[in-house]
């Protein structure tokens, strides 16, 4: 492509955007809205994912130890557990600590368990976390087989259900994002198709005076890029503003694990911008061909 043409194509694209105001405004705002909704959905999904990760990471198991163990036996068991595949952390909880905890939920000043009982009936235990919460059931069964451990608790039943829920939530939000993306592609392509339809006579004439397909396509593509980028830019500004104000209003107060990583958000915004530009061009490409056959 010669430089002269490049200049010509950009000038044409720009002129046409300015002169076909109705079409330009329609296309830009369609892109804008689609990207805005898509971006919002992605942010929601990311945050939901965060919350679910948090929920899952709270899953841990407690291994109760036999009563008659020596210090060295206990630390041997600790080592055995730590060596298991996928174990993230092992924390010793002494019977005294366990009793103190129990007391905290039942006790009051005048009436405390320890003095009532005289002696502590609770066992020592280990709190074990897995690198991947989904491994907890598997690891629990291994821990249970270690000599000196008489029982492992991890909320059997409830945990499996939690995982089922998070799995479905993830699947459905993914499906929704995919649907939204397809919808955005389709809506943008439709708008562009209508905009091009309104200019079909122009294309027809271009062909009649001897323009090649590519000579006609380029300015349209550039228009597509421009309006896609412009539309995406609007929506990203809006989205970034709204989200950062949400984070600063809410994040600090309620301990909800919001996605706040600057780089991650920036990547998202850049991806949305690129999506706008790409959708602009792809929409144009799809729509243009049928009018070129003259």
């Amino acid at each position, binding site marked *: 492509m010669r430089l*002269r043409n490049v200049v010509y194509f950009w000038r044409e694209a720009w002129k046409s955007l300015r002169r*076909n105001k109705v079409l330009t405004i329609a296309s830009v705002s369609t892109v804008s809205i689609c990207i805005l909704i898509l971006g919002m959905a992605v942010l929601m999904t990311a945050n939901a994912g965060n919350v679910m990760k948090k929920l899952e990471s709270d899953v841990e198991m407690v291994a109760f130890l036999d009563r008659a163990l020596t210090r060295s036996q206990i630390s041997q068991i600790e080592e055995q557990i730590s060596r298991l595949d996928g174990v993230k952390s092992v924390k010793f909880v002494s019977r005294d600590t366990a009793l103190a905890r129990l007391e905290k939920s039942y006790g009051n000043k005048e009436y405390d368990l320890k003095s009532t009982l005289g002696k502590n009936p609770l066992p020592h235990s280990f709190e074990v976390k897995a690198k991947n919460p989904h491994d907890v059931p598997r690891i629990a069964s291994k821990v249970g087989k270690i000599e000196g451990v008489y029982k492992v608790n991890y909320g059997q039943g409830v945990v499996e259900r939690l995982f089922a829920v998070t799995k479905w939530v993830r699947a459905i939000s993914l499906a929704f994002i995919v649907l939204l993306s397809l919808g955005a592609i389709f809506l943008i392509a439709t708008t562009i198709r209508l905009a091009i339809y309104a200019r079909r006579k*122009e294309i027809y004439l271009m062909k009649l005076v001897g323009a090649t397909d590519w000579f006609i396509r380029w300015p349209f593509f550039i228009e597509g890029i421009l309006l896609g980028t412009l539309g995406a830019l609007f929506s990203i500004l809006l989205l970034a503003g709204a989200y950062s104000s949400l984070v600063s209003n809410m994040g600090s107060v309620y301990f909800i694990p919001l996605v706040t990583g600057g780089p991650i958000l920036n990547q998202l915004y850049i991806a949305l911008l690129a999506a706008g530009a790409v959708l602009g061009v792809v929409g144009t490409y799809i729509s243009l061909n049928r009018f070129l056959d003259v």
Partner: protein
Amino acid sequence: MLVQFYNVSKIYSNGVKALDDVSLKIERGEFLFLMGPSGAGKSTLIKLFFREEAPTRGQIFIASRSIVRMKRSEVPRLRRNIGIVFQDFKLLENKTASENIAFAMEVVGANPKEISQRVAEVIEMVGLKGKENSFPGELSGGEQQRVGIARALANRPLLLIADEPTGNLDIDTSREIMELLFDINRKGTTVIMATHARELVKAARKRVILLDKGRVIADNPNGESIV
């Protein structure tokens, strides 16, 4: 021989037979009038030259190349060598008069300086000075028609085809346009013009082909017997 039609027929998809077994030869440098009543097939014949329509039957050669068997990718080149004045003008509504003309030159890849010079030239030739920056919606019928003529002239085509180019022009302006066409014809361009304006044809004393109901019913070298 620039143009050869062999037994060309055109039947539109709705069954209308617009051309019926037309055979035709046009020499390089000729000036040719196409006449005939409304609906005779003049515009249809013209559309075959640059493949806006394809013939249903028959063969067409332009500069010895069959344009019936021509590949899709070769069509732009054919069209660039033909200047066309459309019966319905076909101006782009959101381009000014000079942009409409420049556009046809940009398509063939002329350079910007050349374009602006030539555009000013043809605007002057058709008498539209002062209307360069008007959009078609801001021009009178005759002015639009002249923009269409100027656009066809801009690329100095080998073959100029004008479909009723004076339908919206007064007699004085029409005569000026005719002078223009004769002039470029003298300089070597082959000109084919469909028209209803008998006065003009009579004065020109050029070859006239008379169509009726899609058939060539007369082909007269200097138009005497027809008008």
